[in-house]
């Protein structure tokens, strides 16, 4: 009887450990709600008339009363407090785009920056004509010493999806830029367009070392929902 009880308890503890691990992984692996691009009719491109969609994102330097920031599902109070100081993309990092369409993205950039590790990421790549506009002005690169973040899409491994690579640098705010009523400076608006291909799953992340620790690739750069996410082409 005693042996049976110990065996039962051992199994029970094993089940509890597995269940707790699964719950932890499930909660931390959860992606933010999907942000779908807004249909905008059709557009004329070099390959003819295609569907057109628009997407609007913002990058904030930290959370505030007006911008609460991403949720960290499983964390301590200290971790949540630290995360309040992390930069983040808003309103979501899980993006859904239409397949075989022209997508125009506008990013409102509120954060400061500095020198990017690799100058190559200071130029837009994979956009229409490898160009973008900064506050309405068309550019093909920005100073590598004045980059705040990048928005860089690439493909999943082990996938049969076509290779896809889009990277856009976001210029930094001046360190002394005055804040407006919402607690952030006037945003720098970056607009760019690119073509999507066949349906598939991709990821995107920031290539500027804007995190904490681990060569500035820890913190928000290592936590889902802040500076990286998914792109689902449907």
């Amino acid at each position: 009887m005693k042996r049976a009880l110990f065996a039962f308890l051992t199994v029970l503890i094993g089940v509890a450990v597995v269940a707790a691990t699964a719950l932890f992984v499930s909660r931390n692996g959860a992606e933010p709600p999907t942000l779908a691009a807004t249909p905008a009719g059709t557009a004329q491109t070099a390959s003819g008339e295609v569907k057109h969609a628009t997407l609007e994102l913002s990058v904030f330097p930290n959370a505030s009363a007006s911008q609460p920031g991403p949720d960290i599902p499983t964390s301590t109070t200290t971790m949540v407090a630290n995360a309040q100081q992390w930069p983040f993309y808003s309103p979501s990092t899980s993006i859904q785009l239409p397949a075989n369409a022209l997508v125009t993205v506008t990013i409102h950039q509120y954060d400061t920056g500095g020198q990017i590790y690799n100058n190559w990421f200071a130029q837009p790549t994979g956009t229409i004509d490898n160009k973008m506009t900064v506050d309405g002005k068309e550019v093909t690169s920005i100073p590598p010493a004045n980059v705040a973040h990048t928005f860089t899409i690439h493909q999943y491994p082990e996938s049969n999806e076509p290779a896809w690579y889009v990277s856009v640098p976001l210029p930094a705010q001046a360190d002394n830029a005055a804040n407006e009523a919402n607690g952030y400076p006037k945003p720098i608006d970056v607009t760019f367009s690119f073509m999507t291909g066949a349906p598939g799953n991709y990821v995107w992340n920031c290539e500027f070392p804007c995190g904490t620790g681990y060569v500035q690739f820890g913190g928000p750069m290592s936590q889902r929902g802040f500076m990286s996410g998914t792109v689902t082409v449907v």
Partner: protein
Amino acid sequence: MSTTEERPIPAADEPESPTNRPGSMHLVKEWLQRPYVRRILWITVAITAVIIALSFVMVAFMNQSGGPASSIMDEIEKTMFVLTIACAPLMAATLAVLTYSWWGGWGSVAATDAPTEDGPGIKTNGVAVVTWITICSLLAGFLVVWGLVELATITSSSYGSVPANQQPNSVKPVDVNVTAQQWLWSFEYPDSGKITSSVLVLPVNVPAYFNVTSLDVVHSFWVVEEGVKIDANPGAITNTGFTPTKLGTFNVRCAELCGLHHAYMETQVKVVTQEQFNSWIREQGGNKTS
């Protein structure tokens, strides 16, 4: 039983009369007649056949993404195949004894019939020990020699021991500066106007030489189907190379755990004809072609 004393001594020019001592072949035949030996041998043969079949599956699995695409990967696959085949009989024999024992091949004794006294001590079988050690030594020696020869071949083919400009190639290699960073690759072509790409494009049958580095943490530059892998270290440059021998699109991956998107740190290597490569260089704004 006859003794030496009872046996007549043959004359010097007569052959010696046969004794009743069994010959070695007779011993082997007698051993093979034992039921348990025959069963274990049959299991060995069956497991060897399975291992050999699986080795073909292993190679097919390795090649499912289009490889081998270089002589280096050819040698690596050949080595894995030959070593698997060479080890198969020995592994199968070991598994056969285990399997036979697991299934109660030696018989079982009920608890009530368990002997109350120790049996005779187990004696060393000298023939078995010598045979086992000899076979294992020969196999290990073969693996070491084969491995060293292949390692020298692969190292030479990947410029591991000889600088690119001293290689006995009539074709000038394509130099590529490989930069790893969380979580992307970029490839710069210093001889073609320093154009940079997120995809590695190489001409077929032309040696490619890589200067590999990292801008943040340690990564590993792994060109899967070409059979090349080398660390990408921050603040240092490591070198490797290969000659792509097959047209097609293959994979470049990071083989060193490097953070959140390590699993997504991959890109493609496109092996094209020299003409296509030249066109691509021009399209990218390069000022010179190889």
